């Protein structure tokens, strides 16, 4: 008798769980304005990528052409597939001290897996993930970029 009751209960429980699942999909079906598909080439002008999207590694510059990169090379060490090359140079500060600064922050987009490790490792937060996703080019060499802009310098007061 007990097992018979269990059997009946299991039938109704099973039906109930099925209905719960169907309720979820019904909600998706009847709220078409929540659909996630982007009609890409048509909505190219209005399409905004979501915040966490990783399109490429970029180095933000201020309006005075200043960045935060000290040239320490930690990102280069952290990159699992060698997509970053740091070329640094020594300069003399006005006080007469020798100092190593970034010369070229070379970034190979073609080899990057967008794993975000370099961004996480950078002690000064000099590099971030950009949202651009249209990276198609005709020449592979164009995928090798120098992230620090020409003539840029490190912002004042960045702790080294």
């Amino acid at each position: 008798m007990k097992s018979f009751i269990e059997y009946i209960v299991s039938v109704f429980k099973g039906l109930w769980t099925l209905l719960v699942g169907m309720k979820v999909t019904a909600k998706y079906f009847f709220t078409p304005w929540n659909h996630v598909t982007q009609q890409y080439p048509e909505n190219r002008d209005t399409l905004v990528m979501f915040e966490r999207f990783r399109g490429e590694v970029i180095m933000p510059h201020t309006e005075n052409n200043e960045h935060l990169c000290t040239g320490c090379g930690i990102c280069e060490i952290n990159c699992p597939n060698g997509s970053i090359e740091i070329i640094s140079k020594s300069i003399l500060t006005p006080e007469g001290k020798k100092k190593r600064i970034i010369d070229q922050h070379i970034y190979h987009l073609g080899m990057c897996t967008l794993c975000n490790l370099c961004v996480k490792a950078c002690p000064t937060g000099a590099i971030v993930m950009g949202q651009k996703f249209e990276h198609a080019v005709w020449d592979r060499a164009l995928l090798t970029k120098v992230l620090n802009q020409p003539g840029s310098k490190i912002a004042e007061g960045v702790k080294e």
Partner: protein
Amino acid sequence: MAFNIYDFTTLTHSIHVGLAESFSPVVATTIEWIIVGVTYLLFVALFGLFLVYAERKVCAAFQQRLGPMRVGPWGLLQTIADFIKLLMKELIMPRKADWFLYNIAPFIVIIASFMAIAILPFAPGLQSFDFDIGIFYLTAVSSVGVIGILIAGWSSNNKYSLIGAMRSGAQILSYELSVSLSLLTMVVFAGSMQFSTIVEGQRDAWYIFSGHIPAMIAFIIFLIAGTAETNRGPFDLAEAESELVAGFHTEYSGVKFAMFFLAEYINLFIISAVAATVFLGGWMPLHFGNLESFNHVMDFIPPVVWFFGKVLFVIFIIMWFKWTFPRLRVDQILTLEWKYLLPINLVNILLMALVVLTKFHF
């Protein structure tokens, strides 16, 4: 030629009289056969294309996507483009396949579907033949298709095909019981196996309402078992993509694959149409006992619209099943049938008999 959207009897009759006047009986009958055959072919092809499109759109909406959008407005021409592509594909046959069986299998599957579709009443007068063991005939021919599937799996000489076909065989054999028993429940209630009588009996109230509890249980069982009969998800073990490549039609390409594909969608239509006819009143408009004005408004909608509306409703529910539930394992499928659906069905048929005997229905 009298044309009446509410009753096609006059139209079919006038065609028949016109042909009989101008030709000898043999020729007239042949021409009628051809007309009926071509009509069904056209209907099946067009409705099949529409169903594939609908399936993709419905599936997309259930997964918060848009589905095909590029070919034609809202992707309306997508399935036509796909179909043309399929027609132009090369027909490849495995060298070690059984030539005769391999080639005949798609035809068996699709002929079985056509035989089943012939019995369905679309509207008054729109039914190619109507005889007193309609439901019996339907359950008989709808299980012929599984022979085609088994042959396809066997003759392809491919392990995936064979496993898929065997699974399909085990599944359809089991679920055939539930489909037949749930239909039998309604036959007990309707007192007839003839489709026209069954539809006529629902003039005042559809069977799902007048048969109340046992009819609803039978309807649910029929939906579940019918989904399994058509080899659709969540019962798509026979072609479980993640395990068996494509199941029994792995080795088929081009038109032969298209036939299996089409048969699958015709079977979906048949199951839905049978559910609509036996439980939801077929082409009969929605009537409530004594609401005269309401009944009149409902009568204004043509029966064909009622029929297809109900069919599409049932199809939608079945698609809803497919895109909500994960695929069952083989043992789960057999447990569901033999431990749940079958006993419930047997009790339900007794309940229905009791309801009919005590006249405890509307």
